[in-house]
């Protein structure tokens, strides 16, 4: 499939940091739906290609550490603070469903790679993300991002 005119190669933005454990938690602010995932995947497609090929993806964060900015607590309390609901599958669950987690941009951001934006693929992703749960950090006294 042709890549959109003007899309940027994502390759230079990929870190060398595959999640070390299938037990790591993946976090995505929700709630998601097929329609939303389609919109987001197509936004990524419009902006990026991968090595000159079409690329669909959806952003997530991965709890890589026990403490610090890449810990689950920090991701939920800081990066996900505006989300009342979050999807929290494990890395293993995403991999078992056949999804690749590309370590993109700054740590601990990842992009779930999709093979297309068709309904079947998006439904597989929605199922892999699982139900959205309450973000217990939502609405607490916010802490500003260090940026």
């Amino acid at each position, binding site marked *: 499939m042709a890549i959109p005119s*003007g899309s940027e190669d994502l390759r230079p933005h990929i870190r060398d940091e595959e999640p070390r454990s299938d037990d790591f938690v993946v976090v995505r602010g929700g709630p998601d739906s097929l329609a939303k995932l389609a919109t987001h995947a197509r936004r990524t497609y419009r902006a990026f290609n991968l090595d000159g090929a079409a690329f669909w993806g959806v952003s997530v964060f991965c709890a890589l550490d026990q403490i610090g900015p890449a810990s689950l607590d920090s991701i939920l309390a800081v990066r996900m603070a505006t*989300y009342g*609901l979050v999807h929290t599958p494990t890395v293993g669950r995403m991999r078992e469903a056949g999804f690749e987690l590309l370590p993109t941009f700054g740590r601990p951001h990842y992009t779930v790679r999709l093979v297309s934006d068709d309904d079947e693929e998006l439904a597989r992703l929605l199922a892999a993300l699982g139900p959205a749960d309450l973000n217990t950090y939502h609405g607490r006294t*916010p802490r500003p991002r260090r940026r």
Partner: protein
Amino acid sequence: MVMIDIAADLNDEDETGFVWTFLDEARDPSVVVPGAIVVAGDADAPAVAQVVDVIEKPSGKIVHLRLLPGGLEDYEALVRRAITPA
């Protein structure tokens, strides 16, 4: 019902570390200028954000957003407190 100024996936982050989206996804692009406070995201998960910059890229104009702390209801309460009828 929440009216979103600019649709975005608030999970999206690029090399700047800020949330990004396309300017043409704004309800009224003229209000999405650097420094402006906008409502971003979607109706299920809106967030108050500040426009950091608008960057021209070959794929379109990219808006970077800094998510501000608190929810929309916090800002509503703030405005109610601050602005009292004369």
